[in-house]
């Protein structure tokens, strides 16, 4: 399951890019594994995906963002245990909250480690806000938060959709799903 989660994290962004959606969707696999297996497997999924994304892109500079994957894995397994992924009515607010937490975790890394220049689209927003006169810290935080709120809400909704359409014989293989 971990390798499936890692592959989903690395591949699903390709579909978002084909649809020209400003989303990373790089945590869908982590959230799925957290809901089907548990937090330990989700943690390994998130960290492995971050390392392999660095290997495949050739840029290990983004490795400090692995901390965000840890936060996502822990939060997603807690949310799944609480039943937040059973319906869209609970998955969407839970995803929004994760977006807030993930954005708040990523912003200090983006500011202190990379000086605010991270992924292209996010940095363009940061630069625009900075040009409007906002302090750099605030610009980085707002741009990081705005992308993560949308990204993680949609990621949670996607995983909720997968869990709801999971065939019964497959669902029976995951005891964590029954809890």
């Amino acid at each position, binding site marked *: *399951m*971990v*390798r*499936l989660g*890692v*592959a*989903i994290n*690395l*591949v*699903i962004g*390709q*579909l*978002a890019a*084909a*649809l*020209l*959606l400003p989303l990373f969707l790089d945590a*869908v696999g982590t959230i*799925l594994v957290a809901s089907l297996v548990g937090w330990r497997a989700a943690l*390994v999924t998130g960290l*492995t995906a971050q390392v*392999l994304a*660095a*290997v*495949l*892109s*050739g*840029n*290990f*500079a983004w*490795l*400090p963002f692995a901390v965000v994957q840890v936060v996502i894995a822990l939060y997603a397994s807690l949310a799944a245990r609480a039943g937040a992924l059973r319906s869209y009515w609970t998955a969407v607010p839970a995803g929004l909250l994760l977006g807030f937490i993930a954005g708040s975790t990523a912003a200090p890394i983006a500011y202190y*480690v*990379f*000086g*605010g*220049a991270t992924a*292209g689209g996010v*940095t363009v927003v*940061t*630069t625009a806000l*900075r*040009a409007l006169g906002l302090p*750099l810290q605030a610009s980085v935080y707002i741009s990081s938060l705005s992308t993560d709120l949308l990204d993680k809400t*949609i990621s949670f909704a*996607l995983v909720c*959709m*997968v869990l709801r*359409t*999971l*065939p019964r014989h*497959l669902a029976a*293989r995951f005891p964590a799903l029954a809890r």
Partner: protein
Amino acid sequence: MIGYENDTSVLHGAHPYTPLALAGAVFCLVFAARSPEHVGALLAVAVLLAVLAGALGQALRAALAIALPTIVLLLVLHGLLGPAPYSFVGPFLISDSGFERAVVLGGRITTVLVATVAVLRSVSPARLVDAMTDRGVPFSVTYLLVSTLTLVPRMRQRAAGILEAQQCRGLRLGGSPFARLAALRPLTLPLILGALMEVDEQVLALDSRGVGRSPRRTALDPPADTEFEWLLRWMCLVVVVAAWTARAREWLL
């Protein structure tokens, strides 16, 4: 994608742990470095690694493609929009401290990139697995790393196939943001459910072959290691610990 290429360079002949340790040390040290001079020195070390791996051309291409756009953004964010005092650099009014910060941050990213390219080009995944098996790393860890690397291209192909199939059935990729968001469902659902079913079959196959039961496996042809390389790897660790201890002392004092 930057990957392994068969060659006879110095790093290709080394134990796989040695280039990894060298690049890991450069990665840790460059994030501890704060002045442009220190970052520049580490960039020189990374370039030396690329030369030893016979990957200087690839490293420069990667630096141009990945690091240069980030450096330009950093110069805009910190140089043009940075705090006073300012100085003229050509026609541009550039913040002095912002320019120094942009140079340090851009230098870090370039250094990591060049060192990474050197390692990726010189460390053979097969030799790395042999080295890990020889050192007693559990099979589940090596299987996870290697099989995921082979699974990702397959999943990418499948994603492209699903995209084409759904377009044949009339799925439109354009339109309003909401229409594009709605199109995510017919694309992601078959990809994830199909992969889940495949994993289910693979788990049964692996279980029936008793994979993971053996306490320790024997590598057929483990890479040779030398005392010099062993010492070099430990030196990397000592230098990194010393640098970060000095940095921690700066923070505390």
